[in-house]
């Protein structure tokens, strides 16, 4: 039960991408992920989450820096141009 330094990668993106991104993330070696619903506004306009395919999701992955970088790079090259997407990382201590 020692705290381990890790990265928390948070991805805010369109709900239609859910299945696709999860496949990518697991393939890149994540041991798990957490998803929750969100809505918001960014450079791609307002996304209210009210209308079919109109919502955002938040995907969170706890992993080491290398994993987070791999995911960021993949998403950056594949999805950033066409989809609403915001990614940021933060240092956390895993407590399991």
């Amino acid at each position, binding site marked *: 039960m020692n705290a381990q330094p890790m990265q928390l990668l948070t991805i805010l993106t*369109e709900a*239609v991408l859910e299945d696709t991104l999860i496949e990518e993330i697991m393939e890149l070696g994540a041991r798990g992920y957490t998803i929750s619903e969100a809505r918001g506004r960014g450079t791609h*306009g307002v996304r*209210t*989450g*009210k*209308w*079919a*395919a109109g*919502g955002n999701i938040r995907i969170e992955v706890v992993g080491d820096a290398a994993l987070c970088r791999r995911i960021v790079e993949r998403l950056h090259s594949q999805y950033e*141009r*066409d*989809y609403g997407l915001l990614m940021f990382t933060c240092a956390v201590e895993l407590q399991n």
Partner: protein
Amino acid sequence: MSFEPVVLFFVLGAAAGLLRSDLKIPGSIYEALSIFILLAIGLKGGVELAKHPIGDLLVDGLVIVLMGALIPLVAFPVLRYLGHMSRADSASIAAHYGSVSVVTFSVGITLLGQEKLAFEGYLIVFLVLLEMPALVLGVILARYGQGTVRWGKLLHEVFFGKSIYLLAGGLVIGYVAGADGIQPLDKLFFDLFKGVLALFLLEMGLVASTRIAALREYGVFLALFAVLMPIFSATLGVVTGWMLDFSVGGTFLLATLFASASYIAAPAAMRIAVPEANPALSIGASLGMTFPFNIFLGIPIYLWMARLIHAGGG
């Protein structure tokens, strides 16, 4: 002109949006209403289908699908060359207009009920058939000579996307169970249908009110397209229905089907298959303009057209 009170709920929703009321239909309720409508329409179609030998419908079906395919093929060059829109946007919008709207169709059916006009019940089968080819055509138009398409993913989305899946599933259950087998479900799926449609239109009004703004940004061309395209498609539908010897009611419904533009199946499919197209454009046009145009003005016009051609042809 024929007037159907249920469309007042659309006005109520749209006004709530424009007046910035805090009225909201929760997302899960919207989902439930649409599952209900898709299943109910499917079941109704299946029960009707069970009354006809399927073989008889094959030729009709082929003609209708082929005529329907003309819609995106006409819409695409209009958008691309007259409207100077990007290839992706033109293809995506063309797919929306080639595909169909279950709610517009339902408003058409309730109008027939009010006017006491019969129609060929198996027409609902064509609702299912027409939803798909336009989406595939849209992707071909966007991608032709432009790299690869993930066809597997797209076709899966087209056939197993919830709207077609529920329509087709309801159709099969209605067909297998028949009118007698479905009868204990009538109290839910048929008796409440129009009330649920009213609630759905309330929500459509709310959403449409937020889409008109998006449309305004993209100017007069798209707004004109959103009104003239359905009239063109309806004319095609009237002629097709008349050629196929449909009743006035059936001819009108086919025209409504052709004139309607998708805002559920098509947006989801296009977002995956043609992601570089701007969804605000296609949904703004189909939901913000064409949908209200159809339910308020289009539908009465199409009924008039259907009556006219039958009066002339008879």
